[in-house]
């Protein structure tokens, strides 16, 4: 651990966030700090998305305008976040029903987005809208802008570089639909992102384009301020926590990349194996035509190999459509997370630099200048958001990969079971005593 900023203010430096007092910590939320039995204190440091509608449980108003407001009204909702069973979930979003639209200028696909919610932010209990990929792209950009301290889930790749893939093929559209569905569900599950105004509009607006044109920037204070952080400052020392996260993401992305390449290689080998099988089976048929007593057994073997070929084809399709895209998504995810980490570094660097500048000015004033305090708060909020999101991300990642890899194993088991059945069924045929011809 390198030396911290000189004459550090009490709340700066590479402390564990758990030990840091909340900038806005008043007596009411103090008891919620530190205790391990309560939800992570970090969860309490959620940011709000706007100054309006801010209701604190103790009826107070946001403390001061210089610090970003913490909305403890979200406390209840945050506790709900940990419930994966959906009992207490109040927002459900689904992507389905892809449709092709042919216009003079272009052809594209839209998907139906169905929203069901009891949240007050939604005027109606149910919505159904149609969106296309560029709408999702717009949403993601807006989320990144307005919630720069959070990890925004990735979108499936915009362009398909492989060349041979048909953008309008059933398989491609289905793969994309699943990924878009996943994208929205991840946002839905996020305690902060799910309340984002742009997200709301995305789910509900009849005419999204009109809204886009308005260019309404509903940035949070933090969002606004983070946006303007200059990148010129050099970070002195990254908190251990974030350094570890950075290292982890580096290795993680690397390993996923390797797995992606291996999976692609396996699919390629399996396809080549399939090509040979498709030639192999029919030769037994040809032979069968020459024979008398052996005709049926040989024909049986030919059919059997045909069945195995079909099973193999299904396996390779599943791998391509279900396994690879999820891997790629996570690689994109970790890339975008790394950008957020960088941004965090910049925020910290700026703060430290300003702090140092103040210290060097040799002023005796004990009061910390407002803008330095602003920087500190900005950094601390960022750290808190990021930490919370990382934990959530780790949990989801674990579940996602458990499911993904079990699915991989399942597909292979099913393939072998199909082949086993085919071969077992011809044994009696082969053993049959043929009548003398």
């Amino acid at each position, binding site marked *: 651990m390198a030396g911290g900023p000189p004459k550090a203010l009490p709340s700066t430096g590479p402390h564990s966030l758990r030990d840091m007092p909340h900038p806005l910590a008043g007596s009411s939320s103090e008891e919620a700090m530190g205790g391990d039995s309560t939800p992570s204190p970090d969860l309490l440091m959620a940011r709000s998305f706007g100054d309006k509608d801010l209701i604190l449980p103790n009826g107070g108003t946001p403390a001061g305008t210089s610090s970003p407001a913490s909305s403890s009204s979200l406390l209840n909702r945050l506790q709900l976040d940990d419930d994966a069973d959906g009992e207490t979930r109040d927002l459900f979003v689904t992507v389905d029903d892809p449709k092709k639209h042919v216009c003079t200028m272009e052809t594209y696909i839209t998907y139906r987005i169905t929203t069901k919610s009891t949240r007050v932010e939604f005027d109606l209990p149910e919505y159904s809208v149609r969106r296309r990929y560029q709408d999702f792209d717009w949403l993601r950009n807006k989320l990144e802008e307005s919630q720069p301290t959070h990890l925004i889930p990735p979108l499936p790749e915009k362009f398909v570089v492989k060349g041979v893939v048909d953008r309008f093929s059933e398989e491609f559209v289905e793969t994309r639909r699943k990924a878009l569905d996943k994208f929205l569900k991840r946002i839905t599950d996020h305690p902060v992102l799910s309340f984002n105004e742009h997200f709301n509009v995305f789910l509900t607006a009849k005419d999204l384009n009109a809204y886009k044109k308005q260019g309404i920037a509903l940035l949070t204070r933090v969002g606004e301020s983070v946006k303007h952080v200059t990148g010129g400052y050099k970070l002195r020392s990254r908190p251990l926590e974030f350094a570890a996260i950075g290292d*982890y993401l580096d*290795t*993680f992305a690397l*390993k996923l990349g*390797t*797995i992606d390449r*291996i999976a692609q*290689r*396996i699919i390629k*080998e*399996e396809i*080549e*194996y399939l*090509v*040979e*099988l498709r*030639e*192999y089976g029919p*030769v*037994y048929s*040809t*032979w069968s035509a*020459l024979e*008398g*007593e*052996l005709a049926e*057994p*040989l024909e049986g*073997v030919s059919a*059997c190999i045909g069945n195995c070929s079909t099973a193999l084809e299904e396996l390779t399709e599943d791998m391509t459509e279900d396994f690879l895209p999820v891997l790629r998504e996570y690689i994109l995810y970790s890339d975008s997370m790394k950008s957020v980490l960088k941004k965090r570094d910049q925020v910290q660097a700026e703060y430290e630099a300003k702090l140092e500048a103040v210290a060097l000015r040799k002023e005796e004033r004990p009061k910390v200048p407002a803008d330095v305090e602003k920087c500190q708060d900005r950094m601390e909020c960022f750290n808190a958001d990021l930490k919370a999101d990382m934990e959530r991300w780790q949990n989801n990642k*674990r579940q996602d*990969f*458990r499911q993904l*890899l*079990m699915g*991989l*194993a*399942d597909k*292979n*088991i099913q*393939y*072998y*079971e199909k*082949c*086993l059945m085919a*071969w*077992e069924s*011809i*044994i009696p045929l*082969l*053993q049959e005593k043929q009548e003398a011809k």
Partner: protein
Amino acid sequence: MEQLSPDPERQLQPAPQEPLGGPDAVLEAAAGEEAEGAGPQDSGGDAMAENNFWLKKIEISVSEAEKRTGRNAMNMQETYTAYLIETRSVEHADGQSVLTDSLWRRYSEFELLRNYLLVYYPHIVVPPLPEKRAEFVWHKLSADNMDPDFVERRRIGLENFLLRVASHPILCRDKIFYLFLTQEGNWKETVNETGFQLKADSRLKALNATFRVKNPDKRFTEIKHYSDELQSVISHLLRVRARVADRLYGVYKVHGNYGRVFSEWSAIEKEMGDGLQSAGHHMDVYASSIDDILEDEEHYADQLKEYLFYAEALRAVCRKHELMQYDLEMAAQDLASKKQQCEELATGTVRTFSLKGMTTKLFGQETPEQREARIKVLEEQINEGEQQLKSKNLEGREFVKNAWADIERFKDQKNRDLKEALISYAVMQISMCKKGIQVWTNAKECFSKM
């Protein structure tokens, strides 16, 4: 051309019984029972000993292979493999086997034996030898004749060859075959002394006959056609199978990479680590399982190869028939032409062109005495020709009868063997599927614990 019939001199008495199954099979010789109507008893004291020999159960095995160096015909150093052939006789009473003979032979000596059998038993579908050079190889399999796996498969193939010969009701009684198993030194000389090489049909003659024969037995023509197609289809099958094996190998081996990367990944994970690590281990097991699987499959390929080569032997019998038939047709044609010549000379009419006719025109008529002489010669030739034709006809019919009997025997053997081969292939596939299910189920369980 002299026809070689199943020569009693070549045969040992008495004939053994049923055909054999797999390796280490036992040849049972029952005293006094004649399967094929054996000819007159072989004279000489040897016969008695031979009788006793064949009365007991015989076990033949090619039990070992050894690399040797020696000097070849051009006095150059060469490396070759020698195979140990052991013959055991099994006492009926207690089932104990006693080693009666053991000697070393190399592949070329097997070839010599087979070539001999081909010449002296043209009506028999002679069992083939394992391939001389490795063919239909997929990339992991060595094409090197000295490779231990190849040598091992060859050893099995040679044993199979001997067992096939030993279980053939006619071939097993051959003296040269018996000597092959029992007389190490001098055997080559003994075989060559039979002069079989000289008696072999020239390939050119055989080819000629195939094209020109007018009335071959339709059944043989069909069988020849069948053997061509069989050869073609099995070749194709073996080629594609080799490619399939290659690809399958690739699929399995790449999975091994999962093992490595899961292990590396598990190092940076907390809760997920153990599950990943142990799943990776199963991927390694999966990748390495393909070696045994494909080794077993080579056995199936060898079984197919045997019948690929058997097709060649089948065709040889058909060609022999065509040759004999052609020979018969030529002899009949020759006889007819001589008869006609004779008739013309006798009646004085010249219907056919002859050199004599030409010279008569050019140099004048021949004297009555000359003509008489010529008629006499022709009549003698005609007589001889008729005798020959008769015996050729008889030989031809004998050949067709015996050859067709062996072809029927071969057909049954082929159907039985190939069915067994297909069954064992299916069993191999089933085993492979079950192993696959096992490994992936284990991996799935590891993943579930992540």
